[in-house]
């Protein structure tokens, strides 16, 4: 498999009044060309920070303190995105790496028509073959039809569109410059199930047609299950598990993943089997010693491991392309059987 982005030992810090917060702690993750990856985590687990890191949009008080992000273009040498200056990075943003932001309903400028958003975006990210206004609008209309919106939407203001329509317009906007990778940060949160189904359906069709690499950041396990090929799990700024979706679901190798999968109510399973993870996620300013999940981990409670002594900072290979942060992964896997 061709890598498209390799994140290596990425650390992102935020300076606060009460100390440094490491929102992204030594995260290493490889994304492959044409793959659909889902990163799941609760609020504050660092998924948006990771996305901002890849997009080069970390601003003060945030700071990337360590690591490298290698981007492999379709042709040519890999580029370390973190070594680029702002203006150099701007050449890749939106033309190669693009995003659909969280709370997408609010990212459109209320005083601009949808078509102006397309024109502005194309002008701001000028590529070698600069498009004329007419070409931009033609391409915009084509993209809108791909997300099943009529061309008249181009002449609408954001407030004239429903939440689902805005979300679709933004997806079209993100595809304007034919990017390689699209990062979707909570693309369906705050949408109804029917609209959510529609957006997912559109994204799957786009992937089938263009083979674009997609990275979903979400807290919704059910979205991950129905779309992605590969999933990562984040907890307290760390990537705790990464692997193929079937493997992670059938035999998770980190107790947090196991707990999370057991905590999601669905329409099919037995209600009696659902269980919450005890306790709350820790404050990033006062992390527990050793394993961050330790205080909530069932295994640590049962005396299966001593979380204070666990000091794993890089992922361990649990076989079958599944990576985990938990040294007791064999025991966790046995639990699932």
């Amino acid at each position, binding site marked *: 498999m061709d890598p498209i982005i390799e994140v290596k030992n990425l650390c992102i810090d935020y300076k606060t009044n009460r100390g440094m917060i490491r929102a992204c702690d030594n995260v290493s993750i490889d994304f492959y060309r044409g793959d659909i990856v889902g990163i799941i985590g609760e609020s504050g687990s660092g998924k948006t920070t990771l996305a901002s890191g890849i997009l080069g949009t970390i601003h003060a008080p945030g700071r990337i303190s360590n690591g490298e992000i290698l981007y492999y273009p379709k042709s040519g040498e890999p580029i370390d995105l973190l070594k680029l200056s702002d203006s150099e990075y701007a050449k890749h943003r939106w033309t190669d790496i693009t995003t659909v932001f969280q709370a997408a309903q609010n990212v459109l400028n209320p005083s601009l028509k949808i078509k102006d958003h397309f024109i502005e975006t194309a002008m701001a990210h000028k590529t070698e073959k600069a498009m004329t206004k007419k070409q931009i609008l033609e391409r915009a209309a084509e993209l809108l039809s791909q997300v099943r919106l009529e061309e008249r939407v181009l002449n609408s203001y954001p407030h004239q569109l429903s939440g689902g329509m805005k979300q679709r317009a933004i997806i079209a906007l993100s595809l304007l410059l034919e990017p390689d990778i699209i990062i979707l940060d909570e693309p369906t949160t705050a949408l109804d199930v029917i609209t959510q189904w529609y957006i997912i359906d559109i994204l799957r069709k786009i992937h089938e047609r263009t083979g674009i690499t997609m990275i979903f950041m979400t807290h919704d396990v059910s979205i991950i299950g129905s779309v992605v090929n590969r999933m990562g799990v984040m907890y307290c700024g760390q990537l705790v598990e990464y692997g193929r979706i079937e493997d992670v679901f059938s035999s998770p190798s980190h107790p947090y993943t196991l707990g999370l999968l057991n905590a999601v109510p*669905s329409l099919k399973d037995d209600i009696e089997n659902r269980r*919450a993870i005890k306790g*709350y996620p820790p404050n990033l300013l006062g992390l527990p010693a050793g394993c961050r999940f330790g205080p909530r981990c069932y295994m640590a409670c049962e005396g299966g491991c001593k979380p204070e002594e666990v000091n794993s900072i890089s992922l361990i290979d649990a076989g079958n392309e599944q990576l985990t942060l938990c040294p007791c992964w064999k025991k966790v896997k046995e639990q699932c059987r």
Partner: protein
Amino acid sequence: MPVLEEGERAMSLIELKNVSVGFASRGKKKDVVNALVDMNLSIDEGEIIAVVGESGCGKTTLGKVITDIYQPSSGEVLYNGKNVHKLSKKEYQEYRLGVQMVHQDSYAALNPNKTIAQSLVLPLLRHKLAKNTEEALKILFEYFNEVGLNPPEMFLEKYPHQLSGGQRQRILLARALSVRPKLIVADEPVSMVDVSLRISLLNLMAKMNQKYKISFLYITHDLGTARYIASHGRIVVMYLGKMIESNNIQQAISKPMHPYFQALIAAVPEADPSYRDEYAKKLPLRSLDLPDLLNLPSGCKFHPRCPYYNEVCVGKEPELRELGGGIVACHFAEEIRKKLEERS
């Protein structure tokens, strides 16, 4: 039209009789948007009812009309058999205490300038459930332990922003419980809470339901959590301000009768990737968008989106009728069910 009258039964705790709520539209035309149309619903003591539907279907309006935040433009809300607007002052106060609400946004529901203790002691003093602050704090300690906020003193002295979403939601629940209500209207109480904590909040509500016989009206758009909390209760499906289906929840989800509810269930993604192929390739809907609220379709309000519609649906609006142990508002519910069973 009677709704779910199963023989003789004691008076319902809350009963809605033909309640409609309209809001004036602020557009150029003077128009009224009906958020709730002719709603009939009774909530018994100790019952859990889940209300589901798309945004804009009137489920929050239903919650707010039950708590008397919105007043019905026609019809009446009965509390223990009496119209809430004809109660004496004392009875009205009892009703307001008896029916509590837990909101979706726990951050907005607590005063940011007050500590949790300051916010929560006040209602107890105001309603004379406690003689003084000390006694009020004692009561709060009890309920904080109950909702799993241990130790209570650690939370009472904090400001809302110092707590996590899950903790604030527990505080809202403790606040509602502290005045010993009969019914809690919970409007999307877990949608802003982290996934790993949702189940524990739902369990907590189920526990309170069993321990204190508190009824819950659980408003949500998430069918998974609705099925979880109301596993022994009823579900009410709403569409454009109307109840279109209601039944025992297990029965309703395994055998949905109304085509809208069928589409709603088909659209729910399943977490387990082994179900991926079952995830609807196509939704049984003709259109994905809600019709214009100011220009509603004739006949059945669902017909522009319904894959099974015919002239009858365009001409005549279906009324709720009994079917399969529940009620449904669809002319052709039996035929549609038969078709679905033949197909599968």
